[in-house]
């Protein structure tokens, strides 16, 4: 697998999007969309096999290395993230075809541009290039979030666009500060001593993007009111790319010890706690999931804050695991909302009997999210708590465990009221959820079961990724040249 093909994987979805903007026939649109996404997933899986032993693939576009060239570098962390995000994007696109979001003729081109942005952001090694690709990810999302039948989409879109623009402006300011102090924006060439202040600005911008406390408010005000397929896609992509960037930039700033150590851990612990509590108080399904996403983003960021290879590896496993779980949860809940017209728990009921497949598609990821064995969520939480204990962060570990119980309570709340309790007899009769809508969520539920029972190979890959982040000499050698 040659490194030269990495930029091709960014250019191909863009070209496909340009072509699809001219095409009107739905069959061709769907064929190109699924063809490109499937090809990308297979390509990135092959890339994982290539970098599994710790090699870093790097390609320079234009100009000498380490200087003015734009460098794409894929190590184990990037390859794992790329595979996970492209797989979940593929399944969310299938879900969108099922809900009818695909009927709008600009949906497929926008999703392809989104994919190109994510692919570029996860494989670049230059800060300004990361900013550009983050914008490429965000701008189609501004349009996609408007594309909803919910009456509340106007304010939701406004909040989302405003928060994302704020994050982007802060991020580019951080990039400017980094260039001003260090003279370079290459992730491999920035020295820890130079990048502390710029790194603080960058991390703040990324905390807004990843919805960590105290800048988490926009998430639960926007994701519940986008269309279900779009919300599922965003849950797997945007915040996760922000968390990936937090990992990259935070590990840059390490100088033998964690940067802003107590503050970083405090932010993560607050996110874990506040998200879990807030999820319990909501009365609709998707706000519960959105707040618990704040909580899980706190867990993932805790992996970065712990900063040793063990903590990083645990965080990376949690991140990959969470991409699958959140996609599955948003899709199963979205299938219910799409068919029953509401996400309010008081308007639903008895779904376990009427829709056993949807109930299964919800139950498996929900238990995995709460950290119940034998699912992959348990493995991820256990690894993270053990890493926290070994780094001496006992309070963080305790709160992580307690918040897991609170998340379980929130999932039981949804399960009890929407699936088990009897439906109001006066509610109008509705046809069942189509099988095609449930399949993507079931597939991701299967992934979490498989990873829970036999995920050692993934843990080993995350270990390689964590070591590659904690000790970046291989990365620097690949990017800057020997």
């Amino acid at each position, binding site marked *: 697998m040659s490194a030269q093909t990495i930029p091709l994987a960014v250019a191909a979805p863009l070209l496909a999007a340009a072509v699809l903007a001219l095409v009107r026939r739905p069959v061709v649109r769907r064929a190109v969309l699924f063809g490109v996404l499937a090809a990308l997933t297979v390509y990135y899986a092959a890339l994982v096999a290539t970098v599994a032993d710790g090699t870093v693939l790097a390609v320079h576009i234009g100009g000498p290395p380490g200087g003015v060239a734009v460098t794409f570098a894929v190590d184990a962390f990037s390859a794992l993230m790329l595979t996970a995000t492209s797989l979940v994007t593929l399944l969310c696109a299938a879900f969108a075809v099922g809900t009818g979001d695909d009927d709008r003729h600009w949906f497929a081109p926008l999703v392809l541009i989104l994919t190109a942005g994510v692919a570029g952001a996860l494989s670049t090694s230059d800060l300004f290039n990361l900013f550009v690709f983050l914008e490429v990810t965000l*701008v189609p999302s*501004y*349009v996609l979030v408007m594309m909803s039948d919910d009456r509340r989409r106007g304010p939701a879109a406004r909040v989302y*666009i405003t928060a994302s623009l704020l994050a982007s402006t802060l991020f*580019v300011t951080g990039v400017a500060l980094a260039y*001003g102090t260090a003279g370079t924006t290459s992730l491999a060439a920035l020295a820890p001593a130079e990048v502390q202040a710029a790194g603080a600005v960058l991390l703040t911008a990324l905390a807004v993007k990843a919805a960590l406390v105290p800048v988490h408010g926009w998430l639960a005000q926007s994701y519940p009111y986008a269309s279900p397929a779009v919300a599922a896609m965003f849950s797997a992509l945007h915040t996760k790319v922000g968390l990936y960037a937090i990992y990259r930039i935070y590990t840059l700033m390490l100088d033998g010890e964690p940067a802003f150590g107590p503050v970083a851990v405090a932010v993560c612990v607050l996110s874990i706690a506040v998200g879990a509590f807030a999820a319990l108080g909501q009365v609709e399904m998707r706000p519960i999931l959105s707040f618990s996403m704040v909580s899980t983003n706190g867990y993932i960021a805790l992996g970065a804050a712990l900063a040793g290879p063990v903590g990083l590896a645990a965080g990376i496993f949690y991140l990959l695991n969470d991409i699958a779980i959140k996609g599955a949860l948003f899709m199963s809940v979205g299938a219910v909302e799409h068919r029953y017209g509401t996400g309010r728990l008081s308007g639903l009921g008895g779904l376990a009997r009427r829709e056993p497949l949807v109930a299964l598609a919800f139950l498996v990821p929900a238990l995995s999210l709460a950290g119940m064995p034998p699912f992959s969520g348990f493995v991820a939480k256990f690894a993270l708590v053990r890493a926290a204990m070994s780094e001496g962060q006992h309070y963080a570990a305790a709160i992580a465990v307690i918040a897991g119980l609170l998340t379980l309570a929130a999932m039981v709340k949804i399960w009890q009221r929407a699936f088990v309790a009897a439906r109001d007899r006066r509610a109008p009769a509705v046809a069942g959820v189509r099988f095609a809508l449930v399949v993507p969520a079931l597939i991701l539920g299967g992934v979490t079961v498989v990873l829970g029972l036999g995920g050692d190979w993934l843990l080993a890959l995350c270990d390689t990724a964590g070591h590659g982040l904690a000790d970046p000499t291989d990365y620097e050698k690949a990017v800057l040249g020997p």
Partner: protein
Amino acid sequence: MSAAVAVAILVAGGVFLVLQRGLVRLTLGFVMLTNAANLILLASGGMAQRNPPLVGVGSTENAADPLPQAFVLTAIVISFGITIFLFSLVRSGRDDDTEDDP
């Protein structure tokens, strides 16, 4: 010094406008904030370097750093596109943000 003062004024005005009611004021606020970010990008190349960064034109003493200028061009284009999108939002929807408090 003048760049720092300009950035300060732009950010102050931008933050004030972003917190106002009404999508038009929000958009104008973001125009100011992104322009402030662009100024910071330009300033990161060194404000003392004023000569054009071209070989063979003028002296290479104090030639400006071309990389921040490339960054700023990209950032300006991105912010321009987003401004157009925000204004199209203003145009398309009923602006329910400017109604009086109940």
